């Protein structure tokens, strides 16, 4: 991977677009030239969504895609902060971000075929990766899942770059009926992959990691944790690994699946 100047900075951002793209899910496009120029797939930004004193902490979001001077963020409206985000109008310049932050996906030299497994909003950090892999000539297959058709996100992004897409929904409203681990397991059995990249609910990532291990394919996971600072100081976002407790914000959020101790409290 090309090494670029990648140190984080505080950057004021302007909302270029903010659309509802699935049930309860927004896609925000931000003018953020400094971050856009250096962010790598799997890295995140720490977004200050409100300047008032009532909600004070930033919110971490994986960069979904970066293009030119823009970064895109997929967010699920789950609480006060994301509700504020949903209310932002085009032209809003009240927010700032700290980024790019964290360690993103590793793409080993020479890989030819990658499997991406996205569960629900887990598609967020995988969009930019899929585009990056395709641009390098890596064949990309995607297994994506959601509770229902209305909550499936980023299908269009994956369709543009993937050679094959398999979809599963809990209610069968699109694709096959069941969990995303179904198509993931089938694809792993049918084809030879050099790498598996996954993000989604932790139980799903753990299941995918096991499928990949059984197929003897290296697997990376992107883990979500509550965090305050995002830069490694507060030690809120710890992840249990075989090497001990590490910080998701600076040592992750992407980890080799075999390093993660899934059963830790």
């Amino acid at each position, binding site marked *: 991977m090309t090494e670029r100047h990648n140190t984080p900075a505080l950057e004021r951002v302007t909302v270029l677009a903010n659309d509802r793209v699935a049930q309860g899910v927004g896609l925000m496009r931000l003018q953020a030239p400094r971050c856009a120029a250096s962010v790598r797939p799997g890295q995140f930004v720490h977004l200050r969504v409100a300047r008032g004193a009532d909600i004070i902490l930033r919110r971490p979001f994986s960069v979904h895609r970066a293009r030119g001077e823009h970064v895109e963020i997929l967010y699920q409206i789950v609480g006060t902060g994301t509700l504020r985000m949903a209310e932002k109008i085009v032209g809003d310049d009240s927010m700032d971000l700290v980024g790019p932050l964290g360690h993103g996906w590793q793409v080993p030299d020479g890989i030819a075929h990658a499997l991406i497994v996205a569960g629900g909003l887990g598609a967020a950090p995988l969009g930019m990766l899929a585009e990056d892999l395709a641009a390098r000539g890596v064949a990309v297959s995607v297994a994506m899942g959601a509770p229902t058709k209305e909550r499936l996100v980023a299908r269009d992004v994956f369709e543009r770059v993937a050679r094959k897409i398999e979809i599963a929904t809990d209610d069968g409203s699109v694709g096959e009926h069941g969990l995303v681990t179904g198509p993931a397991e089938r694809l792993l059995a049918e084809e030879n992959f050099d790498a598996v990249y996954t993000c989604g609910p932790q139980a799903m990532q753990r299941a995918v990691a096991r499928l990949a291990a059984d197929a003897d394919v290296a697997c990376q996971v992107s883990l979500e944790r509550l965090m*305050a600072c995002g830069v490694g100081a507060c030690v*809120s976002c710890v992840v249990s690994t075989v090497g001990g407790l590490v910080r998701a914000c600076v040592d992750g959020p992407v980890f080799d699946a075999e390093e993660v101790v899934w059963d830790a*409290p």
Partner: protein
Amino acid sequence: MSVDVDMRVTLGSLELRSPVLSASGTFASGREFSNFVDLSRLGALVTKGVSLDPWPGNASPRIAETASGMLNSIGLQNPGVEAFVAKDLAWLADSAPETPVIVNVSGHSVGEYVRVIERLESESGVAAYEVNISCPNVDAGGMAFGTDSVAAAEVTAACRAATKRPLIVKLSPNVTDIAWIAAAVEGAGADGVSLINTLLGMAIDAETRKPKLARVVGGLSGPAIKPVALRMVWQVARAVDVPIIGMGGIMDATDAVEFMLAGASAVAIGTANFIDPTATVRVLDGLAEYCHRHGIERIGDVVGALEV
């Protein structure tokens, strides 16, 4: 910002080039903020708590956001004093040699506090100690020492006997009369006090009926606690002669001025670092601007200048 306001302050025998410090536990040992802040502009860098042995910290979730604040129950996770010397102190000596380092010392017992200090006495890169007798997130030691004037004095006296370096004691707000505790540690040999540490609190998820922190209770910080912190700084300033490092919800220079007016000789920036990694120098610039606007030549003239 201007060069002609004298921003120097003294904390006992410590001469600091500015009154703005980092608050322990919110700034690691500075490295994480070195992309954002010129560390040499800090009056001093107060490190995260350092214990004798490695401490694993508490279970997750360790934080919860609350109205105008946050709760944490990190539990002083740290790799112990040997790793601190080898990694953090070495990095600071190399990368921020002009920044005075105040090491925050934690322990489960009086003996552990003393042994951390004893280990650090031979290290040249330590300007002072801040004895943490106020962490609400550990079972043994921590806040237990800071909520009992006899125990507070005992820890202070033992640490005092172990060093001639400036000794600052960080006080807990989770007491009935913080001035009483401050007077006790002053009497036991403290050269200064810092206050306040976090206020013990909790948060509950009504939908799941579960506490938001794995440890159920944690320490509240952020703008929500500023009025309590100001009141306590003011009370302590009237009760003791040693200098005060004031903290608790400082988000901007105006907040910092308020703490100095109440009697703090210096201020520490804590939770604000999480929201704005440049908060320390932003507050510092704002203090200079305040002085200009009010025709103040020395920031020290603001200390205790509250007009009641």
